[in-house]
C-alpha cells in the first residue's frame, strides 16, 4: 500500500518537475511546479511527518503564487515564451554539473548505512511538538541564523522597493505640479 503510494507520487512529482523544466509555456511550467510541490508533501505524509507536509503545502502554494504574479507581469502566460540562448557553453557546463549531482544522489544510498538517527522519535508526543523540540534544541542556531537571514532579506526588499514610495504612481507628473501650485496659492 505504502509502496504503491510512494511510487505513484514519485512518478507524479518527477513528471511535474520535468514539465516545469522542459516546457516553454510559462503557465504550464508554473502550474506543474505548484503541482509538484504539493505532490512532494505526500512523501511527508507517507513518512508520518504530518506537520512538515502541511507546512510544505502552505509555504509552497504561497511561494509559487508569488511566481505566478511575476509570470503575469513578464509574460503573456497563454503563449509560448521564445527563449534566447546566448551562451551555449554555460548551458553545457551547468548540465554537466547537474548530471554529476544526479550520479552523486543515486550513489548516496551506498553510504547511507552509516547514517543513524540521533534524535529518534519519542513515543506519545505529537508530530508538531517533536518538530518544535528538535528545532529549539539541536537546530536552534541554524534556525535562528535562517531567521536572521530572512529578516535581512525582508529589510533589503523593503529598502529596494521603498525608495520611491512617496512618489505617486497613479497621478501624472503635471497633475502633481498642479496640486503643488494650488497648495502654494493657498
Amino acid at each position: 500500500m505504502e509502496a504503491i503510494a510512494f511510487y505513484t507520487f514519485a512518478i507524479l512529482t518527477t513528471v511535474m518537475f520535468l514539465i516545469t523544466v522542459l516546457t516553454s509555456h510559462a503557465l504550464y511550467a508554473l502550474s506543474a511546479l505548484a503541482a509538484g510541490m504539493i505532490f512532494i508533501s505526500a512523501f511527508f505524509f507517507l513518512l508520518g511527518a504530518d506537520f512538515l507536509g502541511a507546512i510544505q503545502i502552505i509555504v509552497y502554494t504561497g511561494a509559487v503564487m508569488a511566481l505566478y504574479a511575476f509570470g503575469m507581469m513578464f509574460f503573456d502566460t497563454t503563449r509560448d515564451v521564445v527563449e534566447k540562448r546566448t551562451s551555449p557553453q554555460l548551458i553545457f557546463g551547468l548540465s554537466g554539473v547537474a548530471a554529476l549531482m544526479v550520479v552523486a544522489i543515486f550513489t548516496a544510498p551506498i553510504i547511507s548505512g552509516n547514517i543513524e538517527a540521533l534524535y529518534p522519535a519519542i513515543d506519545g508526543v505529537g508530530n508538531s511538538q517533536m518538530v518544535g523540540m528538535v528545532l529549539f534544541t539541536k537546530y536552534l542556531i541554524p534556525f535562528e541564523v535562517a531567521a536572521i537571514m530572512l529578516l535581512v532579506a525582508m529589510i533589503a526588499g523593503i529598502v529596494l522597493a521603498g525608495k520611491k514610495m512617496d512618489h505617486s504612481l497613479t497621478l501624472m507628473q503635471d497633475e502633481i505640479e498642479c496640486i503643488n501650485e494650488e497648495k502654494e496659492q493657498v
Partner: protein
Amino acid sequence: METAYFIETIIKIVVILLVFSALAGFGTYFERKILAFMQRRLGPMNVGPFGVLQIAADGIKLFTKEDIVPTNAVGPIFKIAPVITAATAFMAAAAIPFLPQFTIFGYTVHPIVADVNIGILYILGVMAVGFYGPLLGSLASSNKFALLSAARAAAVFISYEVITGLALLGPLMMVGSFSLIDFNNYQAGGMGDWIIWSQPVAFVLFWIAAFAETGRTPFHLVANDHEIIDGFGTEYSGMRWGLFFIGEYANMFFISFVIVLLFLGGFGDGSVFGALMFLLKMSFFFFFFLWTRAAWPDIRPDQLMWLCWKVLMPLAVLNVVVTGFVMMF
C-alpha cells in the same frame, strides 16, 4: 475492524459530498432570498413554492449548457481550474468535525473523516490550494478581465494567508494542538471557556481573513461584477462555472464551521443541545456572509492591501506577542 472503518469512512465521505453539494445549492437560494428581503424585493418566487425549485432549474441549466473553451485559452489548465476549486473545498472538509460523536444502532460514529493531529493546518493549506482555481482559470482564459482577476487573486491570497496564520497562532499557543477536536474539548466547559473571550483580536482578524479567503463581499475583488465582469469566471460557461460556484459556497460553509470550532466553543460537551447550538452558530456565520453582501460596499485592491499590511498584520503580530507574555507570566 479494518473493513468497518473503511466502510465508515467511505460513507462519511459520500454523505459530506452529497450534503454539502446540496447545501451549496441551497446556499445560492438563501443568498438570493436574504439579499432580496434586505433590498425590499421578493427574490425567486415562481419556480415551486416560494421559488425553492429555482435551485433545480439552475442545476438543469448549468448541466445542459454548452461547455465553451475559448480558442485562445490554454485548454488543459482552463479545464482543470474549476475542479481544483471544488475539489479542494471538499478536501478541506475532511478534517472538520461536523457534529459531536453519536451512537447509532450501537455503533459509535465520529462525524469527521480524518482526525489528523494537524487538522487546522491541513484545512488552511488545502483552502490555500483552492485559490489556485480562480488564479489558473483566469490566467488560462486569455481575457483581460480574467487577467485582472488573476492579479487580484494573487495579491489577496499572499496577504491574507499571512493574517489567517498569524491570527491563529494565539489560540494555537493556548490550546497547544492543531486538532479541531482538541480545540473543541478545550472549550467544552461552557460559554465562559470560549476562546473568543481570551482571544477577541484573533477572532476578529480570523473572521476578516475568512472573508478574503472565501472572496465574499467586502473583499469580493476576484470576481467583482461591476468592475471586471465575473473575473475568473468571465470565459466560463455551464458546469465548469457551476463548479466554481459550488466550491465558493462549500468554502463558505466550511469556514463558518471552522470559525465556530476555533473560537465559539464548537459543539461544546457533545450533547444534542450542543450539536444544535453548533449548527445554529454556524448558520449565523453563514448568514453574516450574506448580510455583509447586502450592507457593505466592496473595497479597492489598494485599500485591501493597506488594510492587510498596515492594520491587520501589526495587530496580529501584537496579539501573538501579548499572548506569549501572558502565557509566560
